């Protein structure tokens, strides 16, 4: 499973970081990015799905 944060949609709610800090980095302005190349380590798939399901801007997505 791989995820990404669409930088054009992200408005810095940081819901993804709050729910899955292992999977996202967040900068001083609140903008999030997926850690590394976005590959979700085994066992954290549910957290990734939670982050996707809670982004108010639909910015977090599964890419493959």
């Amino acid at each position, binding site marked *: 499973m791989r995820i990404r944060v669409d930088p054009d949609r992200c*408005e810095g709610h*940081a819901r993804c970081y709050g729910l899955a800090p292992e999977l996202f980095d967040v900068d*001083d302005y*609140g903008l999030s990015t997926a850690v590394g190349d976005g590959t979700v380590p085994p066992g954290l798939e549910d957290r990734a799905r*939670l982050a996707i399901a*809670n982004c*108010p801007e639909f910015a977090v997505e599964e890419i493959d």
Partner: protein
Amino acid sequence: MTDLTPVTHWDTDFDVLDPGYVADPFTVWDELRATCPVAHTDRRGSTWLPTRYHDVVDLAHDIEHFSSAEITVIPFTGERPDEPVLQYGLPPISADPPLHTWTRRLLLPWFSHRRVEGYEPMTRRLCAELVDGFIGDGSADAARDYAQQIPVRVIAAILGVPSSMSDTFTGWVRDVLEFADDPVRRRRGIEGLIGFFIAEVARRKTDPGDDLLSDLLHSEFDGAVVEDSVVLGVAALVLIAGVDTTWSAIGSSLWHLATHPGDRERLATDPDVMTLAVEEFLRAYSPVTMARVVTGDVEFGGCPMRAGDKVLMNFPAANRDPDAFAEPDRVILDRELNRHVAFGSGIHRCAGSNLARMELRVALEEWLRRIPTFRLAADEQVTWAGGQVRGPRHLAVEFP
């Protein structure tokens, strides 16, 4: 000015300050969503009230047609010619790009996740001291003695202004938000806030501190030092937005726990559910409804909106929309699909959302750690403030 005629037609003549709406806006939204999803009124000027999630989100993202130049039903300043006026309003919340963009960038690092972690120990200490103050009594006003006391002190520390003035700050903020219909109180709040920050800005020119206000004063934009009137507006915004809103969210969450023993027990005994529960409280009891002003005639949702009309960004109603949330009127502490917009949507996403979340979580953790069992006090009335910021103002609880 104030029209006190009770509302009978919510679709064509609503009033968010109507006492019935303040007490229970939820049934009004349900009815409107089903019959007239974008309601209208001519009270306090032509204003629209959307109630569906996707409408509210679409409006928030259309900054071309819906400006943030006016964010309150009753104007913040400038209603009378002799009133003090903030030249730039309260940026970034009452600004559009480009002013919005650069003032927001000045503010955001002060409310980043990293910074907010740094404010947590102070917040926890403060909450514990407040509980110390009433735990021996077996009862407390959870709104006035607890919720109301927390965000104002944290935001005062961040701004670098005396927390000993917290009650004064709270009074001013209530004057401009909650009692704006009363011209005497409204003016007292405006003059108090603006006069206070003018003096604080002057003092910091010669004696800067390690605080947000000093940082703003010594910031630059486009090669020039930021103007005092911008700093005044940003500082007043931080205080106003940082006080009433989070206090309301903490109070509503404690009201829920006082009236839902099952949820209270679960949250007191299973701390792992707290992260999702905080989001669920924010969804179900979203405090804040900002406004926008229509920039040019436009049709939205079949409604002919005219330049100068206001639109209420009804985030609280959006968060109760059954098309966006399963069983929206039920609080499900571990709700997993929750794209709530309590902090708004789009470029005006609440700049203090990380701080508000932390304050809400810590306030609930510290309360439940010491007072895991409590209920509404018998024979005491819970009172709510509503309109554009909703939350309990008196919440008597007992914990014998």
